[in-house]
């Protein structure tokens, strides 16, 4: 089949960017979407043109590295699937597809379809862990965990950190991502000691990064490739309220200086030129 692509081209974080049209004439239905882009890029390289930059690594839907909008939908039309796991059999001959990077002020575009998602790491760094030094753990079966709790924890822990929830949210909130980690640890006994502080620290960090407020529209759940449910957000909100009322807000420590994000590195390396 033949596919027409309108792809966002942007050389670097400072370039204003624009769409550019490409034709891919011989698309096989068994190709993954990214393999189709590989074919396009190979063609561009042989013509001496700049290939389209996009992120990917595992190409099996688990690392969370890939992701862009296809006709406005995060990860494309297939439910519960990343774009690397979306195959061309879900499209038809003659389709015109518009590919854009995640759009959110907390995710600056680095190039073409690649964005900087390091804000998500900083949300985890703010409190998405249990404080256990290597070697200090008790025997694993000493604390029994009811299977339903372990299963619930696993469901929330399945988040791949792709950022599609943010990209699809009209408020660009990171609530599904943040809630998933809070719910994962909150379902387990090991997550209890730091539960209150975690809720405050992670949500505050999300706001500091410029992610918006959640108004429970639910687009995030619809696009999430890992099937994370909206209920993680209500758990987060409950923990947050309990923690605020419990006076935990004062105990939360602010983060030490974190390394510059990828986009900041670009601006440091290329400061804006002074007007003559």
């Amino acid at each position, binding site marked *: 089949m033949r596919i027409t692509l309108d792809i966002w081209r942007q050389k670097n974080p400072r370039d204003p960017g624009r769409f550019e049209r490409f034709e891919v004439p011989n698309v*096989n239905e*068994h190709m*993954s979407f990214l*393999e189709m882009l590989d074919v396009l890029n*190979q063609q561009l*390289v*042989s013509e*001496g*043109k700049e*290939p389209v*930059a996009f*992120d*990917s*690594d595992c*190409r*099996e*839907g*688990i*690392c*969370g590295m890939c992701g862009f909008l296809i006709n406005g939908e995060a990860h494309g039309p297939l439910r519960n699937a990343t774009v690397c*796991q979306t*195959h061309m*059999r879900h499209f038809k001959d003659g389709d015109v597809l518009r590919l854009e990077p995640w759009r959110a002020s907390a995710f600056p575009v*680095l*190039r073409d379809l690649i964005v900087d998602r*390091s804000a*998500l*790491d900083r949300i*985890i*760094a703010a409190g998405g*862990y*249990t404080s*256990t*030094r*290597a070697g*200090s*753990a008790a025997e*694993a*079966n000493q*604390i*029994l*965990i009811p*299977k339903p709790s*372990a299963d619930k924890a*696993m469901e929330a*822990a*399945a988040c791949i*950190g792709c950022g599609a929830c943010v990209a699809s949210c009209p408020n660009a909130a990171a609530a599904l991502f943040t809630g998933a980690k809070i719910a*994962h*640890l909150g*379902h*387990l006994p*090991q997550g209890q000691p730091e539960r209150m502080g975690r809720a405050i620290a992670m949500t505050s960090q999300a706001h500091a990064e410029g992610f918006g407020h959640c108004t429970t529209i639910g687009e995030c759940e619809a696009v999430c490739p890992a099937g994370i449910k909206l209920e993680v957000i209500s758990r987060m909100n409950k923990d947050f309220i309990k923690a605020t009322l419990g006076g935990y807000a004062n105990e939360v420590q602010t*983060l*030490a200086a*974190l*390394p510059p994000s*990828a986009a900041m*590195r670009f601006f440091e*390396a290329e400061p804006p030129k002074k007007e003559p």
Partner: protein
Amino acid sequence: MPLDAHIPSGPIEQKWQKQKFDLKLVNPANKRKYRVIVVGTGLAGGAAAASLGELGYEVLNFCFQDTPRRAHSIAAQGGINAAKSYQNDGDSVQRLFYDTIKGGDFRAREANVYRLAEVSANIIDQCVAQGVPFAREYGGALANRSFGGALVSRTFYARGQTGQQLLLGAYQALQRQVAAGTVKQFVRTEMMELIVVDGRARGIVVRDLVTGKISSYVADAVVLATGGYGNVFYLSTNAKGSNATAIWRAHRKGAFFANPCYTQIHPTCIPKSGEYQSKLTLMSESLRNDGRVWVPKAAGDKRPPNEIPESDRDYYLERIYPTYGNLAPRDISSRQAKNVCDQGRGVGPGGLGVYLDFRDAFKRLGRKVMDERYGNLFEMYERITGEDPHDVPMRIYPAVHYTMGGLWVDYNLMSNLPGLFVGGEANFSDHGANRLGASALMQGLADGYFVLPYTVGDYLARGGFAKMDTSHPAVKDAEREVNERTKRLMSIGGKKSADQLHRELGEIMWNDCGMARTKESLTHALSVIPELRERFYKELRVTGSGAELNQQLEQAGRVADFFELAELLCYDALQRNESCGGHFRVEYQTSDGEAQRNDDEYAYVAAWEFKGVGTTPVLNKEPLVFENIHLAQRSYK
């Protein structure tokens, strides 16, 4: 030159305890004055960086992805082994040790493997404390399953996403240290060169993948945990970005490369669907617990699988290996799949596939239980192939999956270059000629949480190295080499992408140095690889410039290194005139087609020394001594 692995003396059960006592300690107040570079954020690198940070060292941690959580450990599905013996089925440290040595076809170092088995239980404790949501029984205790090559149930798992959950545990521990200021994280940053001063590893040259800037970091010790080199075959179950550059650069700077030819071909992967194929996807081996592998009895039987009656099916693994059946180790299962396909009995496009059938398990256990166990794998299979394994059997075929070889390390996981430590899949240490399922995750975390934090400390405490900074001439030289290499790649101006040329290399490697190797095929590979490498430097085109985000350039650099490594792999396969584990030389097989080892002549680790591109490398040997396990012909019948 025979190599010394510095194995502590004494009985095997006491070696690690003794070593831990003998290792020198760094004064806690001085720890922050030592700087350790950790390249890699997978299970090995992530766990090592977090643990070294917890101890108080200044840690610089690097990965080429956009966040440490995307290291390819994330993709491991099936599980992690540990000698917890929760099932009361006769497991023990001793048995895990024995299974690993036997599974590795008696080509691993006993002392390392024993230590691995010994610390395995601590890993599970650690991960549970981190909140890793392992599968549980209704009573709340941890659940287990069995995996290939073992008769006990010792594999811990988190749905079909065990690697993801273990990695997130390590990543979260790491982020905690980032917040605490002990670990500095460098993402989208690729190690391009190792800096060696007075024979010691003292730093790395990196490329900022966002700006293209080349810069250097110096340190008191360098840990490489950069994963495996399976992508030398182009198609493998590794991630698109997995590469050998870090270890290859270290090898070129003097670190020995051990057993490069020990590569594992995994029996259960989704077959290739076309020329555009960019990678192969693994279907977890855990499926072999409930799936039955078969092909039609008659060659050329083109009926759809569900129309082939029982009497016309050959469940060949159950037939040939009655004891282990579908759970025969990977190398053996892969080779048998190749055999039946060579006999014209393969299924699917091109006859390169065998069935993995769940029909009986669905009948026995019901859909609900099966989906609980394998739901995400079934979905993944359907997404990729468009076929639903609830209705038709899966089609699977072997694919390159794991590399047992890697940089040579001693008992302390230090290479022959002082100050250069290597952990996880990047080293050669624990799996011999074949790795058992669920043992790589165990090894990565053992190295990262429980071995490197001790042994790196010992190296630092012994001191003897001068303070230095990036103005050192060795740093400038290393940077110059990197810049020259980039310039060379940018200036070729051919017509082909690195990917295209890599694919050609992969084909040579798969055909000549894949599941079955012969003297002829290897000699052939050794004659065509240098030719193709020459073409690479004539036909390559890298668009754009070096001073920007440039994925073509990243790829070209990695492929250039694969071209050199490929040759070493073939040299190694050619010198090893025996079959063992994943290395199958057609000339050396038993009368019933099993791998025929030659213990008298080849019970050694082959540790190669780099002598220049196109120059025959020098072979150093570390003799393997088996004091605790009796060498035997491996049998899974």
